[in-house]
């Protein structure tokens, strides 16, 4: 029994890698503006993604880095996505965790990395204020856009600053 499980999980991870490689190929051959992702190393299960803040939102011209982890059950389970760049957003807490339905219960195997990233990008412009992780942000979003903008800029760090801090 143990043997067969082992074999299956091996086969499973191989398929995950294949699937991810194919997604990578798609992303690379048909890049979506403002969204990109790339694996961290050869085992393909952890990626780094980059999202540009959409224009006409408080996040315009800002770049956000995210980490994505894929379980061996991907694409039947959602990837774990975290903001690496500090972000001031109603649906993201201060450690970067995201509250987004398609990353939780609404996940489906038809989604892919590109879809997730696009959803996140649109989440930046259209936060779901009914279930905030950051209550203050949700409040400010509606009441005081200027202050919101200020908070966003204050919290944001460029990738270079992040790197410097990391070192």
């Amino acid at each position, binding site marked *: 029994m143990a043997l067969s499980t082992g074999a299956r999980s091996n086969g499973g991870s191989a398929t995950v890698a294949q699937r991810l490689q194919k997604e990578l190929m798609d992303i690379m051959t048909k890049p979506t503006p403002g969204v990109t992702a*790339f*694996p*961290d190393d*050869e085992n*393909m299960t952890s990626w780094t993604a980059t999202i540009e803040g959409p224009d006409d939102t408080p996040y315009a011209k800002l770049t956000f880095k995210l980490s994505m982890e894929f379980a061996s059950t991907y694409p039947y389970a959602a990837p774990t996505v975290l903001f690496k760049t500090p972000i001031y957003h109603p649906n993201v807490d201060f450690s970067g965790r995201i509250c987004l339905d398609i990353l939780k219960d609404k996940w489906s195997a038809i989604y892919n990395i590109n879809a997730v990233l696009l959803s996140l990008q649109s989440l930046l412009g259209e936060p779901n204020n009914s279930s905030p992780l950051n209550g203050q942000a949700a409040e400010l979003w509606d009441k005081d856009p200027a202050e919101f903008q200020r908070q966003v800029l204050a919290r944001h760090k460029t990738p270079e600053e992040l*790197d410097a801090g990391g070192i």
Partner: protein
Amino acid sequence: MDHRSRVFASIFPVPSLSHTTPTPIATPTATPDLGYTAPGQSFGSPFNSNASGQQRAVRRNLAWSTATRFLSLPKQATGANASFDTLRPPMSAEIGEALHYLLVGEGKSEGKTEESLVDWYISEVRLHFANLVQPTLKELWKKEFELQHAWDALDETKRVLQQVQMLYLQPFNDHILPILYQDNSSSSTIRPRRPTLMVDAHGADDVSWGFRRDIHAIFAHCLPPQRFSKTLSYVLYDSGCKLFQIFVRHDGVQASVERENIRRRMTDLLQDLERVGLGGDNAQKAFAHAMDKLMDSYISSQYLRVDWFTKKSVVPHLRMWIKDAFCPFVELVMECLRCNPSDVQPTELQQWQEMALGRLGRERVDHLFFFVIHWDKSSGAILDIREYLKLAGAKQYLTSNFSQQISRRLLHPGTTTTYILNVYIFIIRAFHELEPKGVLLERVARPIRRYLKDREDTGRIIISSLLTDLDDENGSKFASGGELSYEIASEMAKPFANFSHDADEELNWGDMSWQPLPTDASPEYKKSKVEDVIWFLLTLWEREDFINELRNILGDHLLRCQDPEYQKEIRLLELIKVRLGDDKLQACEVMLRDVLDSKRINASIRASGAKLQTPDQTPLPQTPERVPRTPQLRRPTTSTPSLFPPSTPTSNPPDGPTLNAQILSSFFWPLLRDDQFLVPAQIQTLQKEYESRFERIKGMRKLRWMNALGDGTVTLEFDDRTEEFDKLTPWQVSVVYAFQPQPGEEQPGLIGRGKAKVVSTTRNVAQLEEMLQMDEQLVRQALAFWAGKSVLRETDQDTYEVIEKVSSSNADSDAAAAAQELAEVQAAAQAGAVRSQTDVLQEKKDVYMSFIFGMLTNQGNLPIPRILMMMRMMVQGGFPFGAEELKDLLKEMESEEKVVCLGGDLYGIRK
């Protein structure tokens, strides 16, 4: 007198040291009590009293002067054979008594201070020699003499020395020795048991021997030792050469002297030299030198010639020579020189044989490269070296020396890869003969293999040579091209070796011929089936790389192959499977199966329809579109469109074109060239028809036509001639077909049909590009081709018309010749159905760039090696390029201001 001054005096006569005065210089003053021996007192009695000392001195003086006067040597040079006795005062009783007294009587020297008569005589001899003989010899040896005169010089020296030796020895032997011997014998008879006297008995011999020794020392001293030994050495060498009939002289004069004479002359000389004391260590050393050189000369004159015809080793003969000719000669000389023992020991014989073998072997190894490239004919030499390898140190010598030869003569940019491959094969064969275990081969081949790996065309040459037919193309292809190796092809033609014992031989307990691995093998040494040349070639690369290369070349080859049975290809594949394992070669198998299946499919499709007819023309391979699993590629054959330029195109073509397709599974084939253009309408129709039938047979699988592949045959009918062309590329067919008048065009030709004046169809490049939707490059190439065949003529810039009537004008033929040349150059640049790496790089450049861009965006700044590694890992289908190509890509992206070099090989996104 100390020894040094004596030696000095023997050479440089110093007056103050002169001993020729009859009175001894040394007077026994040191003895305190001088006494005389009373008459009747026994001589030399231990009881001799010192009281008689005084008397003895006087008497000794008297006797001394008598004896020395008698014994003194003539002061002038004597005639050649003068007998010395004639010059000497006659022997008298008085003299005899005096001698007796001085030698064995009371007058015998006592202590160190008194000089003995023998010593005096030696000094006398020395002086005489220095004054009279030495100058002559010095004269003789001072001047240079040529080698031919070496014999004479030695002879002369020998003669002079013999003569003076006789002169010196005669008085000694006649007058001194007998007295000493007499004394010996008498005393020994009287008191035989007295040990002291026994010493005395030998004394006489000792004195005699010492005297001779002294004379010989004098002789030896007067000759320049080096020159003498060189001369002697030369003489021995010379006689050896003559005896063994080595003709080292370059003037063509053959020594005609009989061997027997030489031998006698040499033995005489040696014996005489030995007699005058010149046969000692020096002579032996000289002899050793001579023999050393003799061995060299003999080997180089007799054995360096390789026996190209019988292909036998000369080593047995060499050993025989050492044993049966060299050794006897040595023994002869040693006997003359009275060496002890004069026999050659068996161990020495063996040593000499090895020495000779070593020399022969080194000579051979120095030319090993030459032998290797003439392998087979040179197997005699190789066998020699094989013997040589048994000696200690031989392998190291061979490895280092041969490696040098290889790097000097083979591994440089001036040699073609084909040549290197051929030589490598020769090396494999020759070294297999040399050392079947393959350790040496592994060592010497390592640099070659490394070098071959670096050459770009190695893989292509190997594989295409493997696919070449040995029989019919012998002469032309191999000689000229330089791209095909005859040797590889001939290896391929050899029957299959048996690889069944591939299993772990170390564990085969039943193997009675098992041997341990050679001790000098390197750690990665594997017992290889050395005889299998192809195995060596196939293992040059990593398996994967090789198989990729094989796939490309095989693909190209299959598409061109004319053999409907594909026997050679099947065999090659089998061969490679045996060597590399069949799991990796799946793609190749599929390719092969594709082409074989295509034949069957063609047949069945043709059977199902009337219009697709017989002639097996060329196929255009097609990649199937996206049939997910077994994608079927098919290749349509271009049919033979007949072309009647002025006449109506479609009207009754003789047979109608036919089409054969090759159906290829694109997934397994390498990337094929896929230029898009329109094929002639007739062909298109056929393609459609074929397609529909194929879909019917194959369950709705789609075909995608690859028009750029394949070939075609056309018949062109002109006003004045009909020509047939085959092996045309599809775009050439399309282009020439485009010169058919189009239905819409008002063709003057139509009207003028049958009349004298016919206007040819004219097209320009742009028109053709549009009509055929073809790349300009292909259009131009096809135009140049047809112009070269005198089918088209360029009437204006980029405008061509059909040559309906071949005129005799030179202009046409000149233009045709020029165009043909151009066409050939273009075709060469375009050859190959499989896309090259550069093409792939160009085509996929955008993907690669976006990969790099994505990588750098998300992962931050990265160094080139890291980028390269990620590319290889991440890009689907692999990234078959190296750091160089990657750098070029990055440079290009840098110039597009996408990335920026952050120093060194670190790159980042440009902000």
